[in-house]
């Protein structure tokens, strides 16, 4: 079979006289045609089922069980607890502060990332091609930094003793600094001790690393809008803000919808940066991701309540995802 295909045109064996058109329904690989896509899907489906869906079911099961050190090592079977894990996490202040941190962080970081990213995207569109490439390469550096390294970098910039942020704040004229922040001396300011300032640093870090993706996506969208529309707007004397509101925004609405949902999902489960910035000792600074894994893995291991927190986080994310999927299916012929 393979051999015939390597024969050049016109040299085909006489077994198929008159160059009859190959019928698509012939059994080429020994499989009925209808089954081919399913066969191709098997490896992918097996991976998804075994490593994503099955664990998901397991996670829900574990959330109703007591799984501690004895159960992990197999010395005792998992004990069924019913809703007890949920009752105890809902009763725990750390759960509510984690939920608050998760939500407040997303509510602040998502719009900031989107606004900054869109502004830079519009800027890139208006810049000359050389300048635009220069800025794109620049923002790509921020985008490419691995999340753990992002945390490391910002932890260093905000370092109490030798951090450059404290140095820069000390540069402000004392009167201005006092008027703005009620203090003039920033030497030794520990930014990563209390929850509020940890999340401020985290927000800066995530916005810094997140805006380039938004900017490049918005730029790609803008390039698809016919220039005549802007021409017409200019002729009609429209202001830039009005042009953005009446032309750019409506046309890019689907892009913004997808970007918003993706940003919400990413910011909701932010982990690596927070792990580096805050560590696991400061329980007040946990978000849901951190709370779930520390509860599950930090001694004494409580996999059951860890799983219960993970279930709460997953449910929230799946609700958001539903919006994403609706948008994707609306926009695209699949």
């Amino acid at each position, binding site marked *: 079979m393979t051999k015939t295909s390597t024969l050049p045109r016109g040299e085909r064996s006489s077994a198929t006289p008159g160059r009859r058109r190959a019928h698509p329904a012939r059994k080429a690989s020994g499989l009925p045609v209808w089954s081919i896509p399913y066969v191709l899907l098997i490896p992918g489906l097996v991976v998804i089922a075994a490593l994503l869906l099955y664990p998901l079911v397991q996670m829900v099961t*574990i959330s109703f069980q007591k799984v501690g050190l004895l159960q992990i090592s197999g010395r005792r079977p998992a004990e069924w607890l019913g809703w007890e894990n949920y009752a105890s996490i809902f009763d725990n202040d750390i759960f509510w502060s984690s939920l608050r941190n998760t939500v407040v962080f997303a509510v602040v970081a998502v719009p900031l990332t989107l606004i900054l990213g869109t502004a830079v995207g519009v800027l890139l569109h208006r810049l000359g091609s050389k300048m635009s490439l220069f800025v794109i390469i*620049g923002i790509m550096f921020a985008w490419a930094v691995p*999340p*753990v390294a992002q945390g490391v970098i910002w932890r260093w910039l905000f370092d109490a003793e030798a951090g450059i942020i404290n140095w820069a704040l000390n540069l402000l004229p004392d009167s201005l600094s006092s008027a703005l922040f009620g203090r003039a001396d920033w030497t030794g300011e520990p930014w990563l001790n209390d929850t509020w300032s940890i999340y401020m640093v985290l927000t800066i870090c995530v916005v810094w690393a997140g805006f380039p993706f938004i900017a490049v996506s918005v730029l790609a969208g803008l390039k698809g809008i016919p220039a005549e529309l802007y021409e017409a707007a200019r002729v009609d004397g429209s202001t830039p803000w009005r042009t953005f509101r009446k032309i750019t925004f409506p046309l890019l609405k689907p892009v913004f919808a*997808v970007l918003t949902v993706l940003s919400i999902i990413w910011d909701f489960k932010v982990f690596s940066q927070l792990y580096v910035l805050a560590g696991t000792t400061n329980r007040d600074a946990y978000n849901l991701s951190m709370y779930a894994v520390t509860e599950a893995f930090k001694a004494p291991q409580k996999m059951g309540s860890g799983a219960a927190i993970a279930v709460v*986080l997953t449910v929230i994310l799946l609700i958001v*995802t539903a919006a994403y999927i609706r948008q994707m299916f609306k926009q695209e012929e699949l």
Partner: protein
Amino acid sequence: MSPLARRRLTKAALNTTGVLVFLVATFPVYWMVSTAFKTNDQIFTTDFIPFPTQFTFEHLSRVLTEGVAGHSIWLYLRNSAIVALGTVLIGAVFALLSATAVARFRFKGRVPFLALLLVVQMIPAEALVIPLFLSVRRLGLYDQLLGLIVTQVALTLPFGIWMLRTFVAAVPKSLEEAAWIDGASRFTTFWKVLFPLVAPGLVATSIFSFITAWNELIMSLYLISDPTKYTMPVALQYFFGQKGTDWGAIMASSTMMTLPVVIFFLFVQRRMVSGLVAGAVKG
């Protein structure tokens, strides 16, 4: 003001903003690299030292020899590379098969499968790590790089299929039909016609999976406890457990970790956007 002067002014303002954006984006990265090459005297100071005037490889050579947690960071970089490459090799084959199925065939269950891909992409790794930890232990894969590879394949596959699908769909079907008419078998058609044309997309998808696996922290943190199996993200956060933070060493290590990603990024940046917001963006 004359229109010409006004246009010049606008252009100058735009370019200035552009330069400002460039500086904001690159400065933290620059600061990481420059700290890595400064002497400790220049690092631990309350003064601002823009360039490492006493340029040194001291930190870099220290992390490459002594390293952290008792091993050179070469070991961790190697472990990360093994995990990421393993993920890419397995993931690429699986993704290509599935992507061909959904892009080339219309079959029952196709749309539900696509929806499933989107849903499973969103399951947080933080949630999966708990059940996966138990399974990996039961299978004897705890503390094994293979265990990490398997979990990373799972985490990267859904997006890989989603992204690769658009590349397969972009290859005109008529090419395959031509080969088909000339008597090529299905396998030959796939291997000789479709595969070469999809290869660039496969490279882009693979790089994306590589970066994801290279950066991943949670699975490595909880599925590995043996320091000789640490991946780079785990090693990097390990520095903070030490007494007195050795910023020079940390910055040298994180520079080493960031470098390959930056290089790969230059290749795939545009394709990544098209994968994530495909359809919504006409780029």
